[in-house]
């Protein structure tokens, strides 16, 4: 009823496994994706306490190959790609001429090429953008033949170390070619939950075998998109299309840390002037953590007012934080109301609800440091 027909949706290589595991499948970014298996709160807790296995095969994987690949990508992103060492990974954003964000992505230096992971909903547009802007000997190779799974949580390292000796010693934001349970994979030590974990790229034909090997380990549970969203919200991480889009700059989105000093000084990426001006003078609004009082969640698009009743912003992501057992949110507020502790008023279902600005993440990150 009113939902797009599942028949028109694409499926990931793990589709049959999702069905077997009792997933509830929903349309997401043109794919039929598992939103939950056992339940969002149970899956969220499994990831915070053990390890969660996520199918993120809908995301776009691609390589940029050719001499000068890093320089070419730097013309589209404000991140420091040229100095990204082989085997290292970095988070950055594609910007437009207004300094807005076209997508956020992970870039890994494979040595012979750059490996990109982009959002599912943006991948066709991102790849077209890259093709239109890469020239000379540099070109894009899409990797639709590969699946991507994420193993996230405090047990992720022990599980990976068991199936691929040494994988537990990978550094945070690094990449290794591994054999996991005998299956050739490309893994990075990163993720989207705030926990230690890995994202593992594998040829589609081996994806089910890899997922089954990971799920057979103690403490590993399948986790759907529902808990993926509540986990990243607790971790204070942006969701493209909600918290960042073409109308938000990296400075407004509190992503200035992704803009290296060399890039601030040298520019050379779309929207550089606007972004440099905002870095120097401050952005008109900022993305902040918002803690609503009481138990009622404040969802995306909830209007935000100052204590004096002036409209100063909007919630962009909001819901329930299962780890905290209370509602949490993030959104944009006018710069002069962005300090932690600032009293806010939210209007939820026509009723005023007190809230305040809080630092993020809501749940401390537990990335691997060592």
């Amino acid at each position, binding site marked *: *009823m009113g939902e797009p027909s599942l028949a028109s949706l694409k499926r990931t290589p793990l589709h049959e496994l999702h069905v077997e595991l009792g997933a509830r499948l929903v349309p997401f970014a043109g794919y039929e994706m598992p*939103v*939950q298996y056992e*339940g*969002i*709160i149970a899956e*969220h807790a499994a990831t915070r306490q053990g390890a969660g296995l996520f199918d993120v095969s809908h995301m776009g994987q691609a390589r940029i190959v050719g001499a000068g690949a890093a320089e070419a990508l730097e013309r589209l992103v404000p991140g420091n790609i040229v100095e990204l060492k082989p085997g290292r990974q970095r988070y950055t954003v594609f910007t437009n001429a207004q300094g807005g964000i076209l997508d956020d992505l992970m870039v890994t230096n494979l040595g012979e090429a750059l490996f990109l992971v982009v959002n599912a909903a943006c991948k066709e547009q991102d790849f077209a953008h890259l093709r239109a802007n890469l020239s000379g000997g540099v070109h894009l190779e899409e990797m639709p033949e590969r699946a991507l799974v994420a193993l996230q949580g405090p047990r992720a390292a022990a599980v990976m170390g068991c199936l691929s000796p040494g994988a537990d010693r990978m550094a945070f934001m690094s990449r290794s070619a591994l054999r996991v349970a005998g299956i050739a994979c490309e893994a990075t030590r990163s993720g989207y939950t705030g926990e230690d974990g890995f994202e593992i790229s594998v040829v589609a034909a081996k994806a089910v075998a890899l997922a089954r090997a990971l799920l057979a380990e103690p403490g590993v549970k399948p986790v759907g998109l*529902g808990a993926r*969203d*509540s986990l990243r919200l607790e971790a204070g991480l942006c969701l493209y299309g909600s918290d960042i889009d073409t109308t938000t700059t990296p400075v407004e989105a509190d992503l200035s840390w992704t803009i290296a000093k060399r890039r601030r000084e040298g520019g050379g990426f779309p929207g550089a002037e606007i972004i440099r001006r905002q870095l120097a003078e401050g952005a008109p609004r900022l993305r902040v953590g918002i803690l609503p009082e009481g*138990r*009622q*969640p404040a*969802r995306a698009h909830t209007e935000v007012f100052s204590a004096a009743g002036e409209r100063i912003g909007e919630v962009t992501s909001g*819901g*329930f934080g*299962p780890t905290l057992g209370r*509602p949490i949110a993030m959104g944009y507020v006018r710069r002069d109301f962005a300090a932690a502790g600032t009293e806010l008023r939210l209007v939820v*279902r026509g009723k005023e609800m007190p809230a305040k600005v809080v630092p993020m993440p809501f749940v401390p990150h537990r990335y691997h440091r060592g």
Partner: protein
Amino acid sequence: MSELKFTKEHEWIRIEGKEGVVGITDYAQQQLGDVVFVELPEVGRKLAKGVEAAVVESVKAASEVYAPVSGKIVAVNQALPNDPAKVNQDPAGEGWFFRISIDNPGELKELMDEAAYKAHVGGGQ
């Protein structure tokens, strides 16, 4: 002798004489997922049939509970706001929302019996 009726919007009402106890169905709680917030109506409030009576929110989604009949709120489940997971655990029992007077018994004829409700949700599963 009590009788159970259902609405298209997935409320159940257990008719007990001139009053009815209202909650959401097992199908509805499954669709919503983990319930984390419930807002109940004020006791004494008069509601017309089909009007929003309560709010129920899960981790992912917010939804409304409508009055299945016209009447006055006689009582609410005081335990629910502090333990909204009861809606998932026991939707037809401890997860009840409110008790309402049945001011117009004729309206009950417009509701579904259990077999009709099962057929109603059967197509969506």
